C-alpha cells in the first residue's frame, strides 16, 4: 500500500490533489462527472461577505497554452454559500477549503467570522486576485500588508489559514516570510500572472477588464520556481499550483517543495483531470518503489528522489 495522504496544518488530506479556487465553483458542476470524495480537498470559488457582480464580459480569452481571465470574483456572498454550497460539499468525504475574498480587512474578517462555526476544514485567503481594483492584489504585493492582514485573519479564524500569494511580486520569498510572520498555517501559490491580449480585428483589449490573470501550462515553469523558492524560505507547508495538467506536472511541484497541489485551468480541458492526476501520482510512486508521497516533497533541492544524487 502506498501512502498518499498528506498533512497540512494538522488537517489530513487523503491525497495531495485539490482544486484551484475559481475553476471548480463549489464542486456541484464537476460532481456530475466524478465522485468528489476522490479528491484530497475541494477549494471553493472566492466567497465575499456580500454578493459580488464581477466584471463585464468578455471575461476570458485563450492564449498559447493558457488563458486570461478577469471574472472579477462574481459570487453569491457568504449567506448563500453557507446555506446552499456548504451542505452540498459536506455530503462528500473530502476536505473543504473555503477561499475568501474582500475589498477591505473588515470584509475578509466578516467572512472568516461567519465561517467560524461552520464545518469547513481550512480557509484560503485570496490576497492576490489581479482582477479587483481594491483588496485582492493590493494586499498581496506589499509584505507589510501581507503580514498585517494575515495577523488580523488569524486572530479571528477558527480554522487553519492558508494565505494565497500573488506571483506579481519581485521576490516571492519576502511575501512568503511575511505571511509566515503573520501566523499563516500554510501558503498557496501561485495565483495568476497579470497579462493582456489585444484583439487586433476589433483593435482593442480582448477582455473587457483590459488586463486579466494568466493561468494554465504557460505559467508552469514560473510557478514551479516560485514554489521552490517559497517553500525553502518558510517552515509552513506550501500548496503548489500553476498550470498543472497531468500527474507529471503535479509531481514536479511536490518535488520542488509543495506538500499538496491544486489543479485549475486544466479542469476546463478535462473535467475529470484532478482525479486522473491523483491516480497518476500513486502510479508514479509505485513505479519508483516509493511508499509514501511525503518522501518526494522537496526532493529536488534535497539530493533527488532517493536522496543520493
Amino acid at each position, binding site marked *: 500500500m502506498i501512502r498518499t495522504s498528506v498533512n497540512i496544518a494538522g488537517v489530513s488530506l487523503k491525497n495531495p490533489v485539490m482544486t484551484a479556487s475559481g475553476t471548480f465553483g463549489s464542486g456541484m458542476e*464537476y460532481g456530475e462527472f466524478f465522485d468528489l470524495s476522490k479528491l484530497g480537498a475541494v477549494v471553493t470559488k472566492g466567497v465575499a461577505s456580500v454578493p459580488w457582480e464581477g466584471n463585464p464580459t468578455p*471575461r476570458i*480569452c485563450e492564449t498559447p497554452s493558457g488563458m486570461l481571465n478577469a471574472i472579477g470574483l*462574481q459570487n*453569491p456572498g457568504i449567506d448563500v454559500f453557507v446555506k446552499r454550497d456548504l451542505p452540498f460539499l459536506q455530503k462528500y468525504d473530502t476536505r473543504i477549503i473555503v477561499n475568501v475574498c474582500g475589498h477591505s480587512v473588515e470584509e475578509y474578517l466578516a467572512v472568516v467570522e461567519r465561517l467560524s462555526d461552520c464545518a469547513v476544514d481550512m480557509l484560503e485567503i485570496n490576497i492576490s486576485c489581479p482582477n479587483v481594483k481594491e483588496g485582492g492584489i493590493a494586499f498581496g504585493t506589499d509584505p507589510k500588508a501581507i503580514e498585517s492582514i494575515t495577523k488580523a485573519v488569524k486572530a479571528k479564524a477558527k480554522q487553519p489559514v492558508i494565505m494565497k500569494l500573488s506571483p506579481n511580486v519581485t521576490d516571492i520569498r519576502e511575501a512568503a516570510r511575511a505571511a509566515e510572520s503573520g501566523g499563516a498555517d500554510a501558503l498557496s501559490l501561485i495565483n495568476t500572472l497579470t497579462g493582456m491580449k489585444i484583439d487586433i480585428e476589433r483593435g482593442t483589449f480582448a477582455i473587457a477588464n483590459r488586463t486579466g490573470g494568466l493561468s494554465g501550462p504557460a505559467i508552469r515553469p514560473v510557478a514551479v520556481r516560485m514554489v521552490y523558492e517559497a517553500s525553502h524560505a518558510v517552515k509552513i507547508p506550501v500548496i503548489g499550483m500553476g498550470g498543472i495538467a497531468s500527474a507529471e506536472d503535479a509531481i514536479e511541484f511536490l518535488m520542488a517543495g509543495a506538500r499538496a497541489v491544486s489543479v485549475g485551468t486544466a*479542469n476546463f*480541458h*478535462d*473535467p475529470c483531470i484532478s482525479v486522473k492526476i491523483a491516480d497518476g501520482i500513486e502510479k508514479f510512486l509505485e513505479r519508483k518503489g516509493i511508499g509514501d508521497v511525503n518522501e518526494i516533497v522537496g526532493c529536488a533541492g534535497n539530493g533527488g528522489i532517493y536522496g543520493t544524487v
Partner: protein
Amino acid sequence: MKKETAHVAAQERIAADIMSLVLRVSFAEEVRPGQFLSVYSADGSRLLPRPISVCDADPEEGTIRLVYRIAGKGTAEFAKLTPGCVVEVLGPLGNGFPVEEFKDKRVLLVGGGIGIPPLYYTAKSLRDPVFAVGYRSETYLLPEISGRFETHIATEDGSLGTKGNVLDAIREDRIVCDVIFACGPKPMLRALKEYAGENNIRCFVSMEERMACGIGACLGCVARTTKPDAHSHVKNTRICKDGPVFDAEEVDLT
C-alpha cells in the same frame, strides 16, 4: 453530459467558410434542440473548448451534426477532420429551446448567419414552424430548411429574398406567429426583442459568450439579466449552464 471521444462519420464544406460535420457520439438521443457541445482542439496549446450548437441529431444512427463557420484556429483545425478521425467533445450542454411548451404553437424561428444551424433540429421538434433566415450573401442549409418548412429569406446584398436583414423580411412578409425562437448576432436579437415587445409576442433568444468550463463552474460566460440570477444572486447569469436560451425579457441585450 459527458466528455468522450467522438468519431467523425462525415464532413463536407457547404459554403465558402461553412462546414458540416457529422459525429458519432454516445449521447445523440439525449440532445435537446438548441443545446451545444464543447469541442476540443487536438493541439495542446489550445486549451479551451469551442462551443458549437447541435444542428441536427439522429438518435437511431447515434450521430449529431454540427454546422460551423471557420472563424479561427480551432475551427480551422476541425475543418480538416475526415471520416475515421476522432475529436474530443463534451455534451450535450445548456438548456435548449422550450420546444415542449410551444410544440403546437406557431413558432417563428429566426436565424441570422451562423445562428441558423441550431434552429434546424429545433424546427424538426415543432409541429408547424415558420423560418425567417438572414444571410450576408451566400446561403447554406437552405435546401434542407425551405424543402421542409415555410421559409422567408433576407440577404444583405439582395441576391435572394428581401434585401436587408431578417427583420425586414419578417415585416415585409407580415409573418404572423405566437412565439419567436432566435439565434444570431446580438444586434439582431436586440431588434427582435423590441419587435416582439411591440407586438406582444414571447421571444426566446440563444446567446453567445466566450467560454472556459462550459458547464457553469467558472462564471466566464455570463449575460446581464434584468432580475438577480439564481446562481450568484447578482444580475449575471451563466450562458453555458442556465442558457444559452433565455426569455428575451430576462436578459439585457443592450
